[in-house]
C-alpha cells in the first residue's frame, strides 16, 4: 500500500511545483503596466512621481492645470500591488497605513476602486477627467498611455 501511495503523492505534487515555478517566473518578469487617460484627453505624458502624487491624493491636477480623478484597481490584486510598488515604492501594508493616516485625520479618502483592467479601461475611456492604470496587454484604442511602468 505504502509503496503504491508514494508515487501517487509525487505525481500529485508535480502540478503544484509547476504552478509555483510559473508564479515565481511571473514575479521575476511582472507584466508592464500602463497609466492611461481617455483617448479624447489632451493630458501630457507624466513622470512616475507625478502619477504617484495623483494616486496618493497629494495633487488633483495635471501639470497643465486640468483636474484629474484617479481610478484604482481593487485591494489584493497583483496589478494594484505592482503599480504602487513601482510608482511610490509602497507595499500593500504601507499603502494602507498611508491612507489610514489621511482618513483618520480627515484629510482624504483613497481613490475609487473599479474591478479589473477592462472595467478601468472603459471608465477612463468614457471620462476625459479620469486617470487609471492597467496591464499593458489590456491596452486598446479607447485609451491613451501617458506612462509605461516596466
Amino acid at each position, binding site marked *: 500500500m505504502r509503496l503504491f501511495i508514494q508515487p501517487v503523492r509525487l505525481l500529485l505534487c508535480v502540478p503544484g511545483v509547476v504552478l509555483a515555478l510559473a508564479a515565481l517566473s511571473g514575479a521575476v518578469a511582472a507584466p508592464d503596466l500602463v497609466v492611461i487617460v481617455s483617448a479624447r484627453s489632451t493630458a501630457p505624458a507624466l513622470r512616475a512621481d507625478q502619477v504617484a502624487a495623483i494616486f496618493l491624493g497629494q495633487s*488633483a491636477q495635471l501639470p497643465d492645470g486640468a483636474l484629474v480623478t484617479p481610478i484604482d484597481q481593487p485591494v489584493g490584486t497583483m496589478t494594484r500591488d505592482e503599480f504602487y510598488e513601482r510608482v511610490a*515604492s509602497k507595499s500593500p501594508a504601507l499603502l*494602507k497605513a498611508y491612507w*489610514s*493616516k489621511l*482618513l*483618520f485625520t*480627515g484629510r482624504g*479618502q483613497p481613490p475609487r476602486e473599479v474591478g479589473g483592467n477592462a472595467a478601468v479601461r472603459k471608465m477612463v475611456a468614457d471620462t476625459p477627467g479620469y486617470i487609471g492604470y492597467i496591464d499593458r496587454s489590456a491596452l486598446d484604442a479607447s485609451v491613451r498611455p501617458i506612462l509605461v511602468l516596466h
Partner: protein
Amino acid sequence: MLSLRALPSLLPRRFTPGGILATVLVASVAAPATALAADDAASSIFKFSGFGTLGVVHADTDTADFTSSVLKASGAGATRRWSMDVDTRLGAQLDVAIAPQWSAVLQVVSEQGYNNSYRPDVEWANVKYQVTPDVSVRVGRVALPVFMAAEHRKVGYVYSMVRQPNEVAGGVPITSSDGIDLSWRWHTGALNHTTRLQYGRTNLSLDDQTRVRANGIVAVSHSIDVGAFSARASAIGADVTVNLAEPLFGALKQFGPAGVALADQYSVDHKRISLIALGMEYDPGDWFVTVEGGRQRSQSLLGTNIGLALSAGYRWRTFTPYIGYSDVRAQASTQSRGLPVAGLPPPLAYGAGLLNAGLNQLLMTLPEQSTVRLGTRWDFHENMAFKLQVDSVTPHRGSRGTLINTQPDFAFGKSILVTSMTLDFVF
C-alpha cells in the same frame, strides 16, 4: 510638563469600562446602518471606519508609572507591573459626504483618560468645505499640529513604533482646537506644499475638578512632500488656564510679595504658551529615518523645554525592525528655593516649609528625560500589525521625567526598562 498629578491622593480613581462598551455600541449601531445603505447611492454618503490598539506594557519598577501621555491616570509600574491602559484604545469614525464640496467627519476615541475611565471623547468633529481642489476650510474640532505625527498619534497602525515618543511636546495639555482651520495646497516644481492656519479655543474637562482651558489658539504649519521626503514646521500659541494646585498658590499668596511672586511665576492662569516644532522624514520604502525637534515655552508650571526624537527602521518582508532615541531638557530649574523661611515665627515657618515642599514636588514634574528604544513591527495580516518594543527610560536631574504616580521612594536618575506589545488594527 503639566503636573496634573501633583496631589494624586486628592483625585478619585475609578475604573469604568463603560466607555469601551459605549464605543462598541456606537460601532454596532452605525455599522448595520451603513450596510443597509450599501445597496443604493447612500453608500457613498456615509462611510464608517475605525481603528484600535490592544496593548500590554510592563515596567520594571514599583515606584512610578510609565505611560503614554500626560492625560492618563495610570500606567505600568507602581499601579500594576503589567498595564493594558498605556496603549489600548478604540476609535470609530463616520465620514459624511454632504454635497460635492461639503463633507463632515466625526471621530470618537475611547481610551483611559485622566479620570481613569474609558469614556469616549470626541477627537474630531468638523464640517469641511472644499473651496477649490487645493483649498479647504474646516469648522469644528480639529487636532493641533503640536508635532509631526500629532494628528494621527492615536492610530497605531499608521506608524512603525508602538507609540509616539512623549519627549517632544509631550507636556502640552492641549491637542485640539474648536474653531476654524484653513488648508492650502500648492506646488512648486516637484515639491508639494501644504500650508495650514488654525484659530480656535478648547475647554477640556479632565475630571470632576480639573479643567484645561485655552483661548486664542493660533497654529500655523507648513509641510513639504517630495517623493520619499517630507518635512513639517509648525508654530502654536495659546492662552492656557489649568485650575491646578490652586490651594497651594492661594496659600503662597498669604505670605506677602514673595509668595505672590511665586504664585505668579508658576500658576497656569491665563499664561501664554508657545510651541515650535520641526520634523523631517525620509522613507523610500525599504527603510526610513525620522528626526524631530520641538521647543515649548511658558512662564508657568508647564515649563520651558526642548525635545528631540530620532528613529530609523528597515523593512524586511513583513518585518520592520527599528531603533529610536528621544530626549527632553527643561530650560528652567526643576527646583525652587520657595518662600524665605528665615525670620518667620515657628508656626509660620512650618507652614512655609510645607508649601515649599509642595512647590518642589510640582517642579519635579518638569521633564528631563532620555529614552532609547528598540523594536519591531510585524505586518502579519491585512490591516493588522503586531509590535514588540523595549524602551530604556532615564529621568535626569531631579525630574521624574514623563513618569507619573511617583511614590515616596522613587529613585531619581535610575533607568526603567519598559516592554510593550501591541496589536494595531484598522477597519
